[in-house]
């Protein structure tokens, strides 16, 4: 693996469309569930252990070479909210575009042909990691970090939260990010023998409900 390639892929400025999404933070702010750094930390922790764990497991499995079609179906089954499925495929398509220009690979081209309107973002992320010469653990780390960093930076914009406080939240969550990434890699390893049902299916009902409500707002800053 190349540690530097991992930094390129994990960089919040990697041009793959994430800046327009709040990871559910916009809905949670409106509902009064995120009001400052402490509640942002709670929100991110919940996201990490549910959506983050599922995304990281899918990404790790894809990076390990598990069939992307079955992983994409597994992602659909783990995403009850239609609005979140749309957002995941949009982000997958955007990541695909950026990655094909950055790390051209036959595997990415094949995935783009199979999903012209986008596969689930974590599945694409795993295949991108392979194209970048990275492994399952790297893909899992990207996914767990994204699962909290997007919400944190969105909250800075939504609440005018002190950016140092938001970054402090991410730093305090780091040991948990390590543990969730390890768990994701472990479950991805079991897919070889047990199939995609070995992947976790942790769900966060409030994130799913919030996403559906958010999609209906006429005025909003973020796409999801």
């Amino acid at each position, binding site marked *: 693996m190349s540690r530097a390639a991992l930094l390129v892929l994990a960089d919040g400025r990697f041009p793959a469309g994430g*800046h327009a999404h709040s990871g559910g933070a916009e809905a949670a702010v409106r509902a009064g569930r995120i009001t400052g750094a402490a509640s942002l930390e709670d929100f991110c922790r919940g996201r990490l252990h549910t959506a983050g764990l599922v995304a990281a497991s899918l990404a790790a499995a894809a990076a390990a070479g598990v069939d992307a079609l079955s992983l994409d179906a597994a992602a659909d089954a783990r995403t009850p909210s239609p609005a979140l499925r749309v957002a995941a495929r949009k982000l997958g398509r955007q990541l695909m*575009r*950026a990655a094909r220009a950055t790390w051209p690979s036959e595997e990415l081209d094949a995935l783009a042909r199979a999903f012209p309107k986008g596969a689930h973002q974590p599945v694409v992320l795993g295949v991108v990691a392979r194209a970048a010469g990275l492994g399952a653990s790297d893909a899992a780390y990207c996914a767990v970090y994204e699962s909290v960093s997007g919400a944190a930076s969105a909250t800075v*914009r939504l609440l005018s939260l002190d950016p140092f406080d938001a970054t402090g939240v991410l730093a305090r969550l780091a040991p948990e990010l390590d543990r969730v990434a390890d768990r994701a890699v472990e479950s991805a390893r079991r897919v070889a023998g047990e199939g995609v049902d070995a992947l976790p299916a942790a769900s966060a009902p409030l994130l799913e409900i919030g996403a559906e409500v958010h999609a209906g707002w006429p005025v909003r800053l973020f796409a999801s």
Partner: protein
Amino acid sequence: MHLDHSHDGPAAVSADAHRPNGSRRALRIGLGGPVGSGKTATVAALCQALRDELSLAVVTNDIYTREDAEFLLREAVLPPERITAVATGACPHTAIRDDISANLEAVEDLEDEVGPLDLILVESGGDNLTATFSKGLVDAQIFVIDVAGGDDIPRKGGPGVTTADLLVVNKTDLAPYVGSDLGRMAADAKAQRAELPVVFQSLRSKGGVRDVAGWVRAQLAAWTA
């Protein structure tokens, strides 16, 4: 290197002038500029002026609403399937410059769904004087300012005023009421832009968009030549 020429992938990855099926894609023109300067009004007037001679579509980048797209729909300047709104996460300049993926997706979907298209207008959300479009997204860009925003804007320069392929100074009919000196604006713009063109327009009068429409036709002629 044209990545998409080596295979039949579903989408181009950058500003490649050809679509995956080998046909030439639509010319893409970006319109940027400060809030309220008249970008949407200019887009609407361009659509009305050009829709009978060209196949065209519009992408709007609203900052936090769908108002620009809804204005265009309400004015019925184009059929609704030819207008797409992109959400920008509070950062309109990011969506047109630093991370253009959502806008590229929108222009490609328009070509797939209502194409073939000659022209796609990409309207930025209202922003500041530094907002410019990536060359990966558009082939040429128009920067729209207005006389009521202060007649010192051309003098202040900035990437939009200085480098846009066309600078439009809008709402010239308001100049006498807000004390803006059009001669001074023209001289300052000339100093900032050298040979790059500047159009002064008022969309209040019939045919007010004629000069900008003429510039767009010239861009299209060069693109298809």
